[in-house]
């Protein structure tokens, strides 16, 4: 049976709130997370069939609390059976509250949960999986489908992440400074990874994956609601919106990629662009500068050009110079080289690209070959460009990029 979309939206919104309340009450994050997930699954079925209960959040808290007290009781009983000498300490919290006994919480735990799920003790794959389940309210099956792995593999990643949280004694609380700043950086990175996983999906069977994009945007909006003054949170949200605005134009109906210069800008989503530009303009005016803001500003300059030839390339070059100072990275240099080529000619771009030749991180990377081929094509060296596109096509592990690069090479034949 299909879950009602309205029910699903509500459940996703309530998931982190309910989990926060239950974890505060029973403390055991792993058991609480399982219990909330079961309550969400039960709600998806029952609410779709019978309509919403009067107090949906209270309903979820009650059902999750019952599951967890059952779980803790049976654990308690097992422990007692195993060790009869154990002191008979009553489990004073093993009593599920009566329905309607639920207080509206004073605080929103979404951010605390995000910090926990994105803890640096967890691998990026675990951070992503746990964030989508515990904060996003997605089921393991949905996450597995989106990441193209068997459900058993994803279930294992989630349970391992929870074991690790338990084993390392990571607390469910807002981290103090300076860990909070570092933690927020990881949270934003995880949200950006989730966004990209969805955004780079190109074709029909990947529709599940594009939901990741909207989920990442939704969660970033949540973070922004809780930290409205943080410039990087606003910058990331703006970057996601401005990037996502291009989605209808970035692929042909057959799934092939359309480069930025050839996209039909009439297909760009105007609402996303308007919102993204407003966000980044405001953030740049009042918050300390950071890499997401600069990337969003670059995306905004592209979005403001009605035609590719109207693009303000000198401004984009200036922004890449700032980005190289803030967050030096060979991929930034690559994009910087393209902007330099557009502003000052392909030779200047190739010169900047030359600085990457000795960079081990870029050795044999298809992007370096692809960008070089593009600049060589601009410079009129078609034979070298063709061979560069072919090399890049052999090195890439992306099917749509390979198709695109082969087509570029064929065009020059």
């Amino acid at each position, binding site marked *: 049976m299909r879950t009602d979309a309205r029910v699903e939206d509500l459940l996703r919104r309530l998931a982190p709130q309910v989990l926060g309340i239950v974890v505060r009450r029973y403390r055991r994050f792993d058991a609480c997370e399982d219990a909330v997930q079961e309550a969400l699954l039960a709600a998806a079925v029952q609410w779709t069939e019978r309509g919403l209960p009067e107090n949906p959040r209270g309903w979820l808290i009650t059902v999750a609390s019952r599951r967890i007290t059952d779980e803790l009781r049976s654990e308690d009983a097992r422990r007692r059976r195993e060790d009869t000498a154990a002191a008979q300490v009553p489990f004073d919290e093993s009593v599920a509250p009566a329905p309607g006994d639920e207080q509206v919480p004073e605080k929103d735990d979404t951010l605390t949960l995000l910090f926990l799920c994105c803890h640096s003790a967890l*691998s*990026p*794959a*675990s951070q992503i999986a746990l964030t989508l389940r515990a904060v996003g309210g997605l089921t393991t099956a949905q996450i597995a489908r989106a990441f193209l*792995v*068997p459900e058993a*593999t*994803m279930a*294992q*990643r989630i349970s*391992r992440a929870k074991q690790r949280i338990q084993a390392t004694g990571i607390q469910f609380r807002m981290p103090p400074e300076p860990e909070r700043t570092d933690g927020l950086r990881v949270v934003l990175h995880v949200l950006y990874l989730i966004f990209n*996983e969805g955004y*780079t*999906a*190109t*074709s029909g*069977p*990947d529709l599940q*994956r594009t939901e990741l994009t909207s989920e990442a945007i939704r969660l970033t909006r949540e973070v922004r609601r809780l930290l409205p003054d943080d410039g990087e949170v606003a910058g990331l949200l703006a970057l996601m919106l401005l990037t996502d605005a291009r989605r209808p134009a*970035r*692929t042909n109906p057959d799934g092939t*990629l*359309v*480069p*930025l210069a050839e*996209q039909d800008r009439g297909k760009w989503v105007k609402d996303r662009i308007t919102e993204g530009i407003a966000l980044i303009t405001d953030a740049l005016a009042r918050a300390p500068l950071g890499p997401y803001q600069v990337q969003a500003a670059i995306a905004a300059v592209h979005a403001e050009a009605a035609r590719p030839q109207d693009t303000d390339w000198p401004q984009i070059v200036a922004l890449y110079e700032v980005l190289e100072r803030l967050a030096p990275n060979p991929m930034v240099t690559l994009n910087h080289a393209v902007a330099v080529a557009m502003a000052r000619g392909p030779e200047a771009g190739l010169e900047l690209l030359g600085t990457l030749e000795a960079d081990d991180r870029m050795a044999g990377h298809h992007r370096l070959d*692809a*960008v070089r081929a*593009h600049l060589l094509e601009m410079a009129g060296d078609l034979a070298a460009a063709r061979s560069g596109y072919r090399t890049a096509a052999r090195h*890439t*592990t*992306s*099917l*749509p*990029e*390979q198709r*695109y690069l082969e087509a570029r090479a064929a065009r020059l034949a």
Partner: protein
Amino acid sequence: MKYMLLIYNNAATLQALSEDERNAIFSEVDAIMKELTESGELVGGEALADASNTKTVRVRDGVPAITDGPFVEAKEQLAGYLMVECETPERATEIAARWPDARHWAMEVRPLMVPSGTEM
């Protein structure tokens, strides 16, 4: 990133090992599979029947021709595969290096193509 770890071995040499040696190999494999399952890195894997069971199919001018035996005649044949998803390529080669067949024959580590990409 997903990687296919291709396991190559020589069936004749494998048969020539003692039972203890073969059992040691199997328990090594079991231990690695358990570890990869628990870490959430294992995506899949299968063992292949002996290469002598292979049929090679070729279609020429629309006519299929089916012959017994593998496409590439070699002493070492593909014996199975393991699919893993790892954080780094180094981790994939590290797993391959621990697989017992790597000591006697070889493992190939090949990244999978992904159906997603970024416009340039």
